[in-house]
């Protein structure tokens, strides 16, 4: 089956071959994969998907590769949980969390996009892969490049969290720490990509790479017994994830795998970097870039490539885009950990804090299904939460010492409150 027709400009619809290009030569609009949906419709079915591998490759028919997957064979198909404890607090009977903090290989949703990007890069004949990253993407590209035996360059802002820097170095790629913010790194990489024949996963491979995010929507619908949810809450950095989740829902709808989709797509940003939320609130159709200042570094893109499209998707689907303070981000991380046992990174805190804000505004009805996407692991951003988590009791190895500490603490009091 030839499922890919080629690439097409999202703006002016000019067609291009399915090569390593990402921008329309005429209007600079983004190139997207054009699928042969008739051919896909003839081969795809719920049964075929259910019999597929327990990874995102069960949706291979809707992913832009020509042959068999060769990277990230265990990516995706992460747990989805019915979050009853958090739901009780927020007044939601059907709150679900998609837990990509345990994605494979590197504990973030980026393993999805990298599985697709590296498989495609190899198909296109590249021997070197690269990326501009706020951390998670670099970790994933580094790990998958190591596994695939590809040369690797990752470009990151120099002030990233220690866990994210170490999470690159261990795979021994070429780690380039740039003295600047992510937007500086991204601009530099666009220029580097013009000079070196490398597969930059989120630049010249971006049309393929970004499609990997659709699998979060597919897995959500499959888990919900082949239905799209009433609401989703998605963190926004570049805006790509949010637009691709929307696309995923509507692809399943048009292929007849689910009924009519009325999902409201809500976006979440941190106040210290909220150019998309600002554009949404001010009803603008253009993004004013900002200089990010937030602990949610993985979302700190001041000049988001898909910001315009994210605003459009939220608006058209009936969703909202909200922002929250860094303090609320930390509270969101704690709430998620202490109620559902999921230790998410700062982006997860942003998502939970916005979920809470929307719930308090009465955006959700009690019996509506709401899915929040938790995209990265808290062990990678320990600095952000370390000052808020307290310290262990330090005692001598004696029963008396323990009992004294217990008396001083309020652990038993809390027990009595239950």
């Amino acid at each position, binding site marked *: 089956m030839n499922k890919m027709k080629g690439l097409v400009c999202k703006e002016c619809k000019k067609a291009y071959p399915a090569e390593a290009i990402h921008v329309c030569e005429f209007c600079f*609009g983004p190139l997207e994969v054009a699928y042969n949906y008739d051919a896909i419709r003839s081969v795809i079915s719920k049964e075929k998907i259910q019999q597929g591998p327990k990874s995102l490759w069960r949706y291979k028919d809707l992913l832009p590769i020509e042959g068999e997957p060769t990277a990230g064979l265990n990516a995706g198909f992460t747990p989805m949980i019915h979050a009853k404890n958090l739901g009780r607090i927020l007044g939601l009977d059907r709150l679900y969390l998609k837990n990509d903090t345990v994605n494979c290989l590197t504990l973030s949703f980026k393993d999805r996009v990298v599985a697709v990007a590296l498989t495609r890069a190899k198909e296109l004949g590249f021997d070197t892969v690269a990326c501009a990253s706020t951390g998670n993407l670099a970790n994933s590209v580094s790990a998958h490049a190591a596994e695939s035996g590809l040369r690797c360059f990752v470009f990151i802002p120099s002030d990233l969290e220690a866990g994210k820097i170490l999470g690159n170095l261990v795979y021994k790629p070429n780690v380039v720490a740039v003295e600047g913010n992510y937007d500086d790194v991204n601009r530099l990489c666009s220029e580097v990509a013009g000079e070196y024949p490398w597969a930059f996963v989120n630049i010249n491979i971006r049309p393929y790479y970004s499609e990997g995010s659709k699998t979060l929507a597919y897995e959500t619908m499959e888990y919900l017994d082949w239905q799209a949810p009433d609401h989703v809450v998605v963190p926004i950095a570049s805006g790509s994830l949010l637009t691709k989740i929307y696309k995923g829902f509507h692809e399943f709808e048009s292929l007849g795998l689910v009924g009519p989709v009325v999902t409201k797509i809500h976006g979440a940003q941190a106040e210290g970097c909220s150019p998309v939320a600002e554009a949404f609130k001010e009803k603008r159709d253009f993004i004013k870039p900002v200089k990010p200042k937030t602990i949610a570094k993985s979302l700190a893109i001041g000049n988001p490539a898909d910001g315009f499209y994210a605003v459009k998707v939220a608006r058209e689907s009936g969703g909202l885009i909200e922002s929250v303070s860094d303090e609320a981000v930390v509270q969101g991380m704690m709430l998620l950990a202490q109620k559902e046992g999921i230790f998410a990174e700062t982006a997860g805190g942003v998502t939970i804090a916005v979920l809470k804000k929307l719930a308090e505004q009465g955006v959700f009805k009690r019996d509506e299904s709401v899915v929040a996407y938790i995209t990265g692991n808290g062990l990678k951003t320990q600095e952000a939460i370390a000052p808020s988590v307290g310290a262990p009791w330090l005692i001598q190895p004696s029963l008396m010492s323990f009992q004294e500490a217990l008396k001083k603490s309020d652990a038993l009091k809390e027990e009595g409150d239950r």
Partner: protein
Amino acid sequence: MKVRIPTPLRKLTDGQGEVLAEGKDVADLIEALERTYPGIKGRLCDEQGALRRFVNIYINEEDIRFHEGLQTPVKSSDEVSIIPAIAGG
């Protein structure tokens, strides 16, 4: 001043990734580029002359939207980069 040209526009600059041009502000610089490389203005600007949504221009690594947009003044020692907005994330 030096102007760096992105890959999608290099067919218009005989394959050159870097060209020289002068102007008093960014709009003026684009007119100068148009005189040497006809067609380039139409790629960068829409019919009303505004910069296209998916084009970013930087002067010495700073986005002109943090200054005065197309009216941002430039001088010979500046380095200008034209970069597609769609990247990253």
